[in-house]
């Protein structure tokens, strides 16, 4: 890995302590996010705050299974986010398909389509596990190891190829996307 300059190190330490996550519930793991956010576990004390649009967000939470229809939107969303951006995959469904391993509409592994920095195991992960994952991600960012966004840029062709293999077409066709 390349040495980081001093400015990059400072920027990384800021990035690690202010994580804005995108408020996008892609799957059922999102059910444990409200307890994590609210009074009992209170993830705002670590600097993690929900954000409304992908433009402002630093981190994309893939909360559980992804079906092909959502995966198209997730790829849109991921590409709309500003660098540096990070991805957390929630639950066993993002790791190897989990309980939906034989479903005709859900994907089996997430890092084939978008780069993932941290996976959380479990179905569904408990709030403690989510907080632990956030802390782990912060540690990774501080050390400069969370480089999924660079990998996506370097291996763009490979990711696109995988996306097209599973989705047929990444672009969304409906009355709103002419």
């Amino acid at each position, binding site marked *: 890995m390349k040495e980081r300059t001093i400015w990059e190190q400072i920027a990384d330490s800021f990035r690690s302590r202010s994580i804005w996550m*995108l*408020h*996008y*519930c*892609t*799957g*059922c793991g*999102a*059910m*444990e996010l*409200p*307890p994590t*956010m*609210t*009074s*009992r576990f209170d993830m705002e004390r670590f600097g993690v705050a*929900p954000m*409304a*649009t*992908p433009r402002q967000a630093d981190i994309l939470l893939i909360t559980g*299974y992804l*079906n092909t*229809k*959502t995966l198209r*939107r997730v790829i849109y*969303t991921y590409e709309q986010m500003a660098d540096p951006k990070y991805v957390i995959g929630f639950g066993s469904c993002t790791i190897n398909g989990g*309980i*939906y391993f*034989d*479903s*005709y*509409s*859900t994907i089996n592994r997430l890092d084939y389509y978008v780069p993932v920095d941290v996976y959380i195991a479990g*179905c*569904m992960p*408990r709030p403690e596990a989510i907080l632990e994952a956030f802390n782990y991600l912060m540690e990774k960012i501080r050390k400069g190891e969370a480089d999924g966004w660079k990998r996506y840029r370097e291996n763009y062709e490979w990711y696109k190829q995988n996306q097209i293999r599973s989705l047929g077409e990444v672009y969304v066709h*409906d*009355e*709103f996307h002419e």
Partner: protein
Amino acid sequence: MGEVKLFFGPNHPGMHGNFSVHMYVEGDIVKRARPLPGFLHRGFEKLMERRYWYSNIALIPRICVPEPDINEACYAMGVEKIAKLDVPERAQWIRMIVLELARIANHLMAVGGVGGPIGLYTASYWGTADRDRILDIFEALTGARVYHMYIVIGGVRKNLTPKIEDMIWKTLDYIESRLPDYENLIFKNRILHSRLKGRLLLTREQALEMGVTGVGLRATGVEYDVRKVDPYLFYDKVDFEVPTATDGDAFSRVYLKFKEISQSIKIIRQALEKMPQGDKVNVAVSKGSALRRIVPKGMAYAHIESARGEYGFFVVSDGKNKPYRVAVRGASYPQGLYGIEKYLPGTRIEDVPLWLATMDVCAPEIDR
């Protein structure tokens, strides 16, 4: 000013779950709206055909996330109806307690959750935090916070110990003591009245024609509750009321949910008192492994009153070790698809998240 196309979701903070409404907007008024479900489609009905009768219990709680126990209960009741199984009496009472606890959890989240669309975040913080107390009971009883897999075919998985009973009593007291705070914070707030009262009106005829069940129907003044009309478990043996309102607007729907919390507390207390003691909480499923159980030929429809309305499982068996077909009636199917198309045009942009919140449009059970 011409029509503007706007996405409401799937990635929008006002959206509950992963669902999308495409709107054509003129000024602030919605001219046309089109629901776009399917972001959470996992093909449950196909997957259930590929798994054994018993292993489906692990799969189906995932159909509906906010209140997963109704799935297991419905499925188990449907299978018991086909197989003509007699469930031990204690297990029935325990099922009732679990279902009502799940209803309280869901309603706390929904009542607080109405704070999201209108900006009263303190309410949603309180609601979610108090819901966690109920999740603690579930964790002690079943070992899991959200997906319990506790109600199984022929009973429940484990017995309710006196220690957990004690915990339930204490938690109910706590939640009852919190209710006045919610009343003061949410239902006595005049800005909230002006936001919710008289908005998103549904008349009784419209609600019945649309096929809405649950709070959306009861807010129009009829006492239609599956627990009363078609009693399952022992709901005919406990004493409770079905709160109704006559306005049919967003406010009365939220307020009814709030009132149902105290009714559920009442039901659980009665159930804890009336429950017979004993260790038998499930019937022996079959000789050998539970996975090899065979259910005789037949079909049945079992439905219960979930927090959002009538929730049903249609189970078909062809006499083998796997279900032949399972179809799910999501409680929010009518209001989530037909209701959005028919009743959102003419409202304002701000009312769209309110429709989703007060009518309880739950995306995973529509998509399955």
